[in-house]
């Protein structure tokens, strides 16, 4: 079924692209500009789509192509466009104000990467193609989570949530031969889409009401 050597090539490609995804994620941690973060996310999503395409080509699994195409359409084009528009419309500061300073965040990011690799080590035998994809997926998840905590603005938190979702998709594509059942993937995909829509509206409302989209000020609503 597979031409000799093709498995090796596919595996190398996936490993390389997954590593790039991790690098992009770590770049996002100290990134201070909002639009740059959106761009980084778009590139990361494109890499995810490429990995899905390689997996689909290698296993001749047509429905994984659908995942790849949906990722390109949704996460590479549509979501960044939506977020860009949102940023322009509400005219906020381009600068992200993290809670922790950049060096400390980077240090923590490194620690979380380590944790991801350690946790994933027992499961490396499950990986079909590529190396350490599970570890990278876990790291994306953990650092994405950390990004969510470390940001003040609702939009940047949405972005962080999207990178978490990227991690989940990576694990799904890389670990299982044929990815998750298509329905599940579609479900997750639309979930994220709707979440972004809702959050977009919410951000708008929050700004209208408390004249800021700084979520650390939401505790003023507490009774």
């Amino acid at each position, binding site marked *: 079924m597979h031409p000799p050597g093709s498995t090796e090539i596919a595996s190398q490609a996936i490993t390389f692209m997954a590593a790039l995804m991790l690098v992009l994620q770590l770049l996002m941690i100290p990134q201070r500009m909002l639009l740059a973060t959106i761009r980084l996310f778009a590139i990361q999503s494109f890499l995810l789509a490429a990995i899905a395409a390689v997996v689909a080509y290698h296993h001749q699994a047509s429905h994984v192509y659908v995942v790849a195409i949906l990722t390109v359409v949704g996460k590479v084009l549509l979501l960044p466009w939506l977020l860009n528009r949102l940023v322009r419309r509400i005219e906020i500061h381009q600068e992200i104000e993290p809670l922790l300073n950049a060096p400390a965040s980077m240090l923590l990011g490194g620690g979380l990467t380590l944790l991801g690799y350690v946790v994933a080590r027992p499961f490396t035998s499950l990986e079909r193609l590529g190396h350490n994809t599970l570890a990278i997926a876990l790291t994306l998840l953990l650092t994405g*989570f950390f990004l969510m*905590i470390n940001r003040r603005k609702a939009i940047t938190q949405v972005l962080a949530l999207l990178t978490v979702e990227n991690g989940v998709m990576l694990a799904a594509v890389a670990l299982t031969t044929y990815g998750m059942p298509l329905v599940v993937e579609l479900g997750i995909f639309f979930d994220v889409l709707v979440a972004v829509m809702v959050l977009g509206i919410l951000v708008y409302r929050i700004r209208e009401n408390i004249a800021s989209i700084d*979520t650390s000020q939401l505790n003023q609503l507490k009774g």
Partner: protein
Amino acid sequence: MSEFPSTLLLLALCAYAAGMAGALVFRRAERLANGIGFGLASAGGTLGLASFVSALASGSCATAGSIQLVPSLIPFVRFSIRADPLGCFFGMTISLLAVAIGIYSIGYARGYYGRKSVGALAALFNLLLLSTTLVFLADHAWFFLMAWEIMALSAYCLVSFDHEHEESRGAGVLFFVMSHAGTAGLILGFLILHQASGTWGFDGFASLGGRLPASLRNVCFLLFLFGFGVKAGMVPLHIWLPAAHPVAPSNVSALMSGVLIKTGIYGLVRVSFDWLGAPPSWWGGAVLAIGTISALLGVLFALMEHDLKRLLAYHSIENIGIILMGLGASMMFLHWGRPALAALALIAGLYHTINHASFKALLFLGAGAVLHATHTRNMEEMGGLARRMRWTALFFLVGAVAISALPPLNGFVSEWLTYQSLLQGFGASSSLLRLMLPLSGAMLALTGALAAACFVKAFGITFLAQPRSAHARSALEAPAPMLAGQAILTAACVFLGLFPMLLLRLFDPLTLQLTGQQLSQQLVAARGMAIAAIAPQGGAVSTLGIALMLVCLLPAPLAAWLLFGRRTRMRVGPTWDCGLRGLTPHMQYTATGFSKPLRMIFKALFRPRREVQREYDFSPYFATTIRFESHVEEPFQTRIYRPLKWLVLRASRRLRALQAGSIQAYLIYIFVTLVALLLVAL
């Protein structure tokens, strides 16, 4: 063996549902909502009564199959009902009350016109009827719990219906909290049963006890005892009852006191007789002891009350105690291998259940009529109502005689049966039984006497002598529907008292199901004119005979006067007023004064406090003003619940710090948990 009348039953349920919908649809037109809502409630009750009575009489309920009400969309829930004998019996009780209270409410709700939404009241009332009926019939654990919760929620809404008053809101919250604590116990109990049987259907739980390990079975029993005990209002879980019953609209109090608290009894019987099977002796002992304590404390606290509805609420605790005494004795007999006696005690308990439902609902309806006329619940402001509200006074008197267990009314029959079964303990083989049962019997006798004293007070202070306030002086008789509702229940009290043999026949399928015995043949003596307890020492009594004798003796004083009294001269003069200028209502015996001797006897329990301040000009014997205050303590309130509440509130305040209200903080909680779990997994 005839077919179970399931069409009638379904029609009854539909009538409740339609009553609820109709009352909501026409909530803008008060009169229409009132008529439709309560009219359909009453109609549903009639249909239900017909179906349950015929099912019990023909014995067809023993073989009644499961009916799916609506197809279920949730995987492990089945909305099915099965009218087995036990369910039918309780269904009969609630249907009887639905008929009477439905009619009464048509008159009672008029008092709310223009003030509150009558449509909402009628809709909630129907919802309460529907859900309580479904509690008795549900055939599936989750469906049962759903009906149970809907019942609790609709009752909560009804208790706090007069939500402008702080008191109503507080009582509602207390009921809500207690009820949910109880439900937690039930859910845990059902989980244990599910684990043992692998099913959620009630048919799978039947006689499950043998397959459970003893410790688990005991835990299960205790959980259910707690859960159902809260709803039944047994001591010490009773505190919601005297708070919630007085503040609810009176028709709701009647329904709650008549049926809602009986769901606890239903659950206990279902669990301990049907599911857990062959109880260890301490179960029966515990239930008997709780029953005895509830009965005694309930009546003692009732004696101290001068809020008419609170007094009745405390009497509900007493009567729940009496019912529990029957159940406890039955469980003990079952353990000691005396199924016939167990059946007798069970019949006594359940007979008292329907009796209490009828006379307590009657009394609450009467209290509602008094409240309607005088706008106060305080007995010290009533008096002299017997002249102005003749019919209400008569009905209340019948209810008072019935609850005081005086022959020939229904309270007497069931308490007599309870005595008979308790006194059989003398012949028991085990020393524990020989000790406990007669002791409870003695306590029951004390309770009965105190209850009679309490109702002398309740009736005397409320209806006799001179009016104590302007409201009482201008009181008017209740409108016709309210009187009709009371009349129905009065008739039920008399009927259940005079013709116990007819009702005993209905118990046959029930005792056959739960204890394997059929007693109606043995219990009915003298060609159906009298009831007799089984076994050698059993006595026999005929309420019908007593009633006939009373009727025959009625002309006796007249005859005596005709014979001997004609020659004495009759003088009419004023009552002696100690030389003061005329009698005033202030000189009358008060409710507080009436209960003083008992307050002094039981002062270790009540810890009465009194405060007297008198102001005088020249001599303390000629005081110008006197201020008198008297309190009794509710030991459960002050000793158990207040510290508990304080602890919970303090813990909640501490935990509140976690709710920082910031997204970052919540995310950190999740993140830290995730990382910690990952580290643990390493």
